[in-house]
């Protein structure tokens, strides 16, 4: 047992004071007023009842209080053999393998520091080796490493390679702490993080994390020689330019964000295509961010943009995927009629499903005697109720296998529906006075997802001049919407794995104003989305994102099974290479360990180690509790004594 501030123990000599006070000849405190002293003779003074046990107890308690006070200030701690020699520690060495470590010799430095740490540890120490970027990869666990020699550890280190993913320092530290908790009983638990500690590293995971008192974090930053880094990231690809003056039909434009590091000395930049052609160039002040716009080459090939002007090459290449609208086959099955007539629903369907940069629907008219194979690659089917009943069997089979279709009832011909649903169906013209409105809509239904926002839910301006009523035996369709006369407007019927949506009124002007309203196109796209045809199909990813074929591991282009080309880039956060403020970690409750490096003298190291040992053991708290107890006892005893009967005549 030793003390952090042993000089305070000298204050224990203050116990002499109460001893002397107790031993002195004490004048009685109580005074008695008496009428006359003429008949009294003074009694020789004696030490105030020293033999009483209460006095001794009081003296003992007072001395004890002073000794405890001195001990508390001296901050005692127990110095065991293990802690002196640094044995029996549990250490997790975490090496940052994020993309920013690709720069210069950062990775080499990290490996060197890891090696140094491994060499510093004694065989009694438990060591776990971990690498991290946006996730944590365990290289060796405590149990595996316990028996490993220094050579084995070096081999384990050599197998490591730097990655291209982003840095989630917070998550890594949290997992490191949980790994330390798995370690068997150790004198000290230390987390050693070897990283460039760039400010782009995420530390959000530490928010709300209760840092264990027994664990301390040692930061081992690699030396970053300079931060002259310009970074680039793609903001958006747009079909055409907002600025009419430079717009060209069919031209695709790129918006690229450029960011310059705070302490960068590089200010001039140039963005070049792979062909060497300059896409954009200019001047960017340190710490500034700017978005530049320029047209992409008229090519359907993936493009690579290279940024020049800085000294950090790892994030200078921007991979840009080509515009790849999704090809969707929309099959249409209708009776004989002029699809080009404004009275035909197909006229409006063809015009609503125009290709855009993300989706390219192709409307394919099916013959009534088409076979199931014709529907095989169809993403969605739109059928009119006047279609031939002979085609219904194939359609029904397709739906049951998972196909999604829309059936529009434009007249009272029920033969197709009867064949499609396989039940007795009758259609009749509803009695509509002036017009009908849609009043009850189930917006929670998947086909109405585009109308999730309450501001888009107004269907009251769409008048329905005509609609039909459907009666089907044994069929219990789900009503998606009703007219204001209570009749169903849109029905949803599940068939096997698929679904049939039935509209009991056409959208052409003869039946209703639906096709001419602003709700028509979103409604169609909602139906298509419900059929699994999504508009959102990103083609730009960062390393670590989940791709259709697995996780993106490095920047570049990835070909998917459906022939699309995806671009993978370095996470933008990795380009923020300025050093992190460690105060942020402390503010989040991380208990930092003193830096173990050559700048700290051995004496200071010992002092710091002792301080940490003392702060862990906190014997002073025990002394404080005892002191309070002793003081309470002393107060009680002293009070009890003074509360005794006052001196007076009986």
């Amino acid at each position, binding site marked *: 047992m030793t003390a952090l501030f042993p000089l305070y123990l000298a204050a224990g000599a203050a116990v002499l004071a109460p001893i002397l006070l107790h031993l002195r000849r004490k*004048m*009685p405190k109580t005074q*008695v007023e008496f*009428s006359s*002293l003429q008949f*009294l003779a*003074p*009694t020789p003074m004696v030490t105030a009842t020293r033999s009483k046990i209460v006095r001794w107890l009081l003296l003992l308690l007072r001395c004890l209080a002073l000794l405890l006070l001195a001990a508390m200030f001296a901050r005692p701690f127990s110095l065991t053999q293990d802690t002196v020699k640094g044995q029996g520690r549990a250490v997790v060495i975490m090496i940052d393998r994020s993309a920013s470590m690709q720069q210069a010799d950062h990775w080499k430095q990290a490996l060197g520091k890891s090696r140094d740490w491994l060499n510093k540890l004694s065989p009694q120490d438990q060591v776990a080796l971990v690498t991290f970027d946006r996730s944590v990869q365990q290289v060796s666990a405590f149990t595996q490493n316990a028996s490993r020699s220094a050579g084995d550890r070096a081999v384990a280190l050599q197998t490591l390679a730097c990655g291209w993913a982003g840095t989630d320092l917070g998550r890594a530290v949290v997992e490191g702490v949980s790994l330390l908790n798995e370690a068997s009983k150790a004198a000290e638990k230390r987390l050693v993080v070897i990283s460039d500690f760039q400010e782009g590293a995420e530390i959000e995971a530490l928010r709300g994390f209760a840092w264990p008192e027994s664990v301390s974090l040692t930061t081992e930053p690699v030396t970053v020689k300079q931060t002259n880094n310009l970074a680039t990231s793609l903001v958006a690809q747009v079909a055409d330019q907002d600025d009419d003056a430079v717009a060209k039909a069919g031209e695709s434009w790129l918006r690229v964000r450029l960011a310059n590091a705070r302490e960068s000395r590089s200010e001039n930049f140039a963005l070049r295509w792979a062909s060497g052609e300059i896409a954009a160039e200019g001047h960017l002040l340190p710490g500034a961010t700017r978005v530049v716009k320029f047209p992409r080459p008229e090519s359907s090939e993936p493009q690579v943009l290279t940024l020049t002007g800085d000294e950090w090459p790892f994030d200078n290449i921007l991979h840009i995927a080509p515009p790849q609208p999704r090809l969707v086959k929309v099959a249409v099955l209708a009776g004989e009629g002029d699809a080009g007539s404004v009275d035909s629903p197909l006229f409006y369907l063809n015009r609503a499903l125009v290709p855009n940069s993300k989706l390219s629907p192709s409307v394919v008219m099916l013959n009534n005697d088409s076979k199931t194979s014709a529907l095989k690659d169809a993403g969605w089917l739109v059928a009119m109720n006047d279609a031939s009943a002979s085609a219904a069997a194939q359609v029904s089979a397709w739906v049951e296998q998972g196909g999604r279709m829309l059936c529009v009832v434009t007249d009272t011909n029920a033969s197709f529906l009867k064949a499609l649903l396989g039940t007795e169906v009758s259609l009749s013209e509803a009695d509509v006075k002036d017009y009908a409105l849609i009043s009850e809509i189930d917006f929670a239904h998947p086909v109405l997802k585009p109308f999730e926002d309450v501001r888009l839910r107004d269907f009251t301006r769409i008048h329905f001049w005509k609609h039909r009523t459907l009666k089907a035996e044994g069929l219990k369709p789900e009503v998606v919407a009703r007219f204001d006369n209570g009749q169903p407007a849109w029905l949803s019927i599940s068939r096997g794995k698929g679904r049939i949506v039935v509209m009991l009124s056409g959208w052409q002007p003869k039946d209703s104003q639906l096709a001419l309203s602003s709700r028509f196109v979103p409604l169609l796209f909602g139906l298509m989305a419900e059929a699994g045809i999504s508009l959102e199909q990103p083609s730009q990813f960062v390393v670590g994102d989940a791709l259709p074929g697995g996780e993106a591991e490095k920047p570049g282009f990835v070909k998917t099974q459906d022939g699309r080309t995806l671009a993978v880039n370095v996470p933008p956060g990795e380009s923020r290479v300025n050093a992190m403020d460690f105060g942020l970690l402390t503010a989040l409750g991380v208990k930092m360990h003193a830096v173990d490096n050559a700048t700290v003298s051995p004496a200071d190291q010992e002092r710091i180690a002792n301080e940490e040992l003392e702060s862990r053991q906190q014997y002073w708290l025990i002394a404080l509790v005892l002191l309070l107890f002793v003081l309470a006892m002393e107060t009680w005893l002293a009070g009890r004594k003074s509360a005794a009967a006052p*001196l007076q*005549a009986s």
Partner: protein
Amino acid sequence: MKTVAAIDSASLMRIKSLELRARVVVEGLWRGLHRSPFHGFSVEFTEYRQYTKGDDLRHLDWKVAARTDRYYIKKFEDETNLRCHLLLDQSKSMSFGSGGFTKEDYAATLVATLSYFLMQQGDAVGLTTFGERIAEHIPARNRPGHLRRLLTELERKPAFKGTSLQASLQGLAELLRRRGMVVLVSDLLAPAQQLEKQLGYLATQGHEVVLFHVMDRAEIDFTFDEAALFRDTESGAQMFVDPAAARPAYLAKLKGHLETVRGICEKHGVNYRWAPTDQPLDQVLLSFLAERGSK
């Protein structure tokens, strides 16, 4: 004299008004006196009372009997002009008390009772309060409002420190020209030698001197338990005293002092009345009056 239920001093002193206290004691006295078997005890008594069997016929008022056909015992007219002077010690030592009231309270009540009693009889009563010197001197009178003046003076408590019987009695002897009765109420905590000279001087002037020696029970028996610093109320002197050790010597000295005082009183014909504060006041007065009546 019949034995009457005495009012204990502590209960009496709880009555705040001095006048009321005096009245309570006097009423008790009257009850005791009216039933007293001692005939003619009340030489200064100026009151009629109904004749009871056994009364001395010499005291029967024949004029009243002839007029009213009732028998009353007659007062002695020539003995009603008693001049009584009450002398009250108000020194600091009188402020000591252990039973919830001080000697001063007891003495003031005693003086007030005597005043009330005597004024009722038509006697002239005067009052002199003293400490180191005479504080107030009210000549003996018997007229309306005089009792109130006496009681007001008794309720006033001057801040005297010491006692100087010598100076006070000497001053009083000069003030009292006509003979009468002098009643001294004091704790006599002063050298007895001083007392002897002045009491003798008063007695030689022809005064009938009565001394009520008031003492507290704690002073008489020295009933203290623990050792403490005893402080003289008059001089302020302090002395460490262990009661257990000091009691025998104290009691011996006190006894000597009391004997000296009694001896002086006997020598000079002073009527010495022992009045410890725990003794009911009416008993003290009744015994005094009874003794006096029997003379």
